[in-house]
């Protein structure tokens, strides 16, 4: 449900940056979203379609890369991908003392325009 405010925040950041870089038409935006972030790619896309009415964004395509939840076990030091957000424990030794390396991302990697 908060995808709308996330996208509004993203557009503010890009608007400022585009202004500084004298870009008036954006063609692509690349967003990286971790699977443990509570933002759904589908809802982010929908929010963008709804909000991107102004000249700067109207022809922009939003690309979303989902990033896996990657953890490192603090007991046996193995690295692994957690298949589900609710299954973060180590599949090698069963320990739940793990450190999350990726999976909580929510950032703009780049945008393109003229």
């Amino acid at each position, binding site marked *: *449900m908060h995808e709308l405010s996330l996208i509004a*925040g993203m557009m503010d950041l890009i608007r400022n*940056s585009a202004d500084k870089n004298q870009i008036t038409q954006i063609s692509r935006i690349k967003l990286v979203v971790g699977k*443990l*972030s509570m933002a759904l790619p589908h809802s982010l896309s929908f929010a963008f379609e709804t909000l991107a009415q102004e000249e700067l964004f109207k022809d922009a395509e939003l690309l979303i890369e989902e990033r896996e939840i990657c953890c490192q076990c603090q007991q046996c030091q193995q690295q692994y991908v957690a298949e589900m957000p609710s299954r*973060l424990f180590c599949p090698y030794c069963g320990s739940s003392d793990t450190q999350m390396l990726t999976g909580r991302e*929510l*950032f703009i990697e*780049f945008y393109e325009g003229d």
Partner: protein
Amino acid sequence: MAQIRMETNILGANDMLAAKNRRIFKEAGMLVVNLMSSPGSGKTTLLEKTIEGIKGRIRLGVIEGDLYTDQDAMRIENKGVEVVQINTEGTCHLDASMVEKAWRRLAHHPIQLLFIENVGNLVCPAEFDLGEHFKVVVLSTTEGHDKVLKYPLVFNQARAVVLNKIDLLPYTDFDMDAFSRDLQLVNPMVKVFRVSGRTGEGIDQWNQWLLEEVGKQHF
């Protein structure tokens, strides 16, 4: 065609404000707890009981987040504690700027323990740092033990989980073993309190822990 690399967190603006809040809270010498749960789990009742238990020993303040009403804030005010209402008017979570504005109205009160009661929602509030010292999740037995795995982020982020409505346990299908096991998977370090806001069961242990946490703050 130009490509501009940003590598900028969308929540960056919120995170910066949260960091500012954290500095303000530190300078004010208080412990700040972000209280999160789904609607109807008993956050406000828990706060009422907490206030009754420790009001005489510590100076408390509450920031109440709610979509539209001030009913919860009135309940807290009736307990004789400083309270500021935030109405998010439809927004599903509190953010750092809302908390900063609310805090300005409390700033002249010497508060040692500030509760921020978030909007009832287990999804969105987990994403927004408010500048708190730690998060506490309230879950009630009537919601079911499966919520831990269904909303892992909020439980993963919590310093403590308060399992409320423990008096209703015999009338529910809440599986205590499954709850403990799942919580261990999602957050092995988390502290758990089993309480009843209605009967007062377990509130003393929760209050004792809060007082210890306030005492631990080295400002």
